[in-house]
């Protein structure tokens, strides 16, 4: 089932306009993002596709305030990132949930502690009910005292998702969350992520390589040559993975 569509006419949670990012490799400068325009409404989910190294992760990092863009404007959760210092951007990130391809769990903490970590970072006692509910939801209620090294890749990603959602963020950024697990587990993880987000009315910006996974989104954007290429034909509940695949081919991705 496709992800939720725009639900309100509230200001967008993400508004990127002409976003640019360049990297210098010695003498060579590579323009990764050349003017990205993107708007993500509250509750909206969007998949971004594109070949490796095109700048999808950089785009997410810019939205998260982890990378400073070289041009353009980024407004996230109502804040102009350019006007925020590192501290303010950090505090803003506490209102987001981030999921990485390589899970990034803290190896010394148990499953429960990893999920509760955002509360601790906030300086608050963990909301045990929320932690338990999410662990139940992701099917890891019986593994709370296990360490990440005792989990499979898929289970680790479920813990990472639980951690990203535990504080009910308004925006979730997911960087190829299914990229490091098998296809079946990937499907399950994505379904769960979309379901929980829909219930929470949170927005999702997700990077994926997989047409089948992108097909579950009401909106798919393609990143090519540093700009986003939207396709109205690929928006909506009836999009098939094949259609996305064809579009990728057309774009030469």
């Amino acid at each position, binding site marked *: 089932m496709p992800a939720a569509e725009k639900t309100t006419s509230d200001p967008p949670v993400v508004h990127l306009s002409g976003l640019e990012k360049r990297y210098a490799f010695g003498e060579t400068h590579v323009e990764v993002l050349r003017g990205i325009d993107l708007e993500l409404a509250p509750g909206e989910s969007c998949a971004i596709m594109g070949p490796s190294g095109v700048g999808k992760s950089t785009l997410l990092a810019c939205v998260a305030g982890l990378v400073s863009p070289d041009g353009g404007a980024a407004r996230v959760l109502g804040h102009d990132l350019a006007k925020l210092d590192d501290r303010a951007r950090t505090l803003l990130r506490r209102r987001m949930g981030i999921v990485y391809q390589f899970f990034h769990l803290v190896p010394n903490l148990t499953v429960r502690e990893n999920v509760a*970590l*955002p509360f601790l970072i906030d300086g*608050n006692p963990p909301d045990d009910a929320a932690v338990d509910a999410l662990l139940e939801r992701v099917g890891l209620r019986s593994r709370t005292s296990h360490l990440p090294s005792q989990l499979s890749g898929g289970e680790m990603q479920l813990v990472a998702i639980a951690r990203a959602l535990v504080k009910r963020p308004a925006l979730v950024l997911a960087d190829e969350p299914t990229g490091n697990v098998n296809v079946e587990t990937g499907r399950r993880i994505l379904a769960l992520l979309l379901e929980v987000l829909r219930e929470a009315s949170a927005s999702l910006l997700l990077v994926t390589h997989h047409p089948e996974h992108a097909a579950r989104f009401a909106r798919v954007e393609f990143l090519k040559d540093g700009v986003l290429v939207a396709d109205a034909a690929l928006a909506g509940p009836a999009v098939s993975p094949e259609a996305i695949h064809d579009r990728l081919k057309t774009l030469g991705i």
Partner: protein
Amino acid sequence: MFAGFLRALFGRFAALISARNLRTDRFGTWAAILGVALGSATVNVVLVLDANTRAIESRSWVTNPDSERTPTTIALQGVRADGTPIEAADAKEETHEDYEVMRSAIRLGSLSAYLVGALIVFFTFAAVIERKKREVALYRSLGALPEQVAAVFVREAVLVAAIGAFLGVLAAIPLSYAAALAGMTTTGRARIHLHDMTLPFGRMITVSLIGAATALLGVIRPVREILRLHVADALAGRAASESDGPSRVRGLARIALPFTALLFVLMRPFFKNALPSLAFFAVEAGVVCALALATVVLVPDVVARLGGLLARALPARSSAVRLLVARRVARRGGELGLPVAGIMLVFALLLALHISTHALKREVIAWAQGGVERCLFLVPDARGATAEPAIAAFPPRAMVIRTSTRTPWPNALHAVESAGIARWARLLGRPDLVEIADRFGPGAVILSPMMSRRFHVSTGDFLDVSGKGGQKRLRVAGVTDDIGYALVLDAYRNGKTYGVIDEADAGLIAPYVRPIGTSLVVLDAESPAEPDFRALFAPIRDMQHTTSKLRGVRVLAGEGFMAERVRETGRDFLIFDVILFLTTALAAIGVANQLAILVHARRREFLLYRTLGMTSSDVRTIVLGEGAFTGLVGGALAVFLGVPLGYATVGALRAVSAFDVAFALPTHYVVLTLAASVALSLTAALYPAHNAARGAARIEHEG
């Protein structure tokens, strides 16, 4: 910001993460705790011994320069041949300064343990934080503020520092008692009685708190580094490129090394003449330390280059293990820089210390071989005792010379029968001594070299003696220790500062000494070069067993006396050995910790070796091989650094003390330094090697 940091320090996040980190990396945690504890304990032990040594020495007028008590004795005044009086140095002050130098050297020496401990803490935190880059990036991406991340590591450091400081105070108590029981003091001329021993807890706690503060300082730089980390890159696994910091430091060190050496060579004579002895010693030690530090910074490059040479020297068809060790050392040898530097510093200090004690022992031996070694001494060791009755018991081959006891130090004179001096000189068959003996007689004095140096007089000058027994100007007949020496049971340095006067002038010192014959010097007239002490001593022993005439008289052969003095010299410097032993233990912990950190970082590499068919034993051998290499290079650099350090120390000893010490490097010291370095390093590599083998097996098992 600071208030935020304090809040974060006591917050849940820092509490949970720091506790987990400390528990997970137990080996590193304990290495850091022991670094603080042993470093502080070493300084505390020296502090306790020094406080008690001072307390004991303050009770005696000989060892307390501020004591107003002075013994009743003769007065001495040097006079030039032309009759000009010569100002002599205050013997007590001069001697006190000598011992102050030793005391300072011991205190400085104890800092070596402190330094190694601080380095362990610093590098442990640096390595741990480096290893946790991705974790820190994750915290930052989850919204942790810089002060929250800093609080995690500072909290770890506080815990390590607090436990280390507490253990440092605690461990110092039994160690101090053990050291005192073994006869150790900070000057070598006092004896600390356990029941009198006091523990300066206030100062001990201060020392441990400074140790704790060092641990906290150790965490600042790594934390500052980690807070500069690029979160997105670290999370993506793109390690930030090495900053130009280390290379800049190394660049500076490259300049510092030749510059320091040049400064040392050029300025040494100036320092030596212009500064008082203690300051000269401090400057010289400082320059050598600067040289050592510059070398430490250069060590990674040296290790990598030596590794390259080793790799080239290996035969082309070597086994995989040998090849891997050689290639690793050649390409990443710089990573072994810290363990190598630790081994180098510790063994360089040990080598320098042993070169110094060797020089001092050689001085004792050279002095004894001049004449003392071939004599048998009978010395009264109790009030009223006299050796006179033994004269009749000696066999005909014995040449017996009667002497008086000595006037109290520092104006020490004793009387000898002049005929005895003449016979003594002729028996030894040395024309220079015969010449002196011929000049000796009533109105003459023979001075020991140390006495001559103290009064700045030499052969042909005069020494004015005055006291209750009268006043007389005595001509210096010669300066030697080889005839006329009569053994006294006193500190070695004091025992060597004396003058010999003729029995005809004994009245000058009579009120202050026991008469001629109280003390005897006996030589073997039949075999003066190789005296038969057994034959000389046999009748005396019989006499001691059958009569009470020699009660309170000590009989000592010259060679036995020499051996005892050599042992005493060793014992005086034993405290340095203890300090350096603790430093060596710390170095072993540091090396083990560093290798463990490297092994942890390379666990996937070891897994690859296992998947390629290597056994656990092969993996263990790789780590042990690197350990052996670390020890070998560290040992070689220790010799390279320790020999000039030893040379400088002997030079400083010559400059500040009255001893005529000379530099010498026994070959077995070099061999022992290399062997001990390799042994220490291999021992330290055992645990990391075991871990590497076990870890590789586990990872493989887990798939």
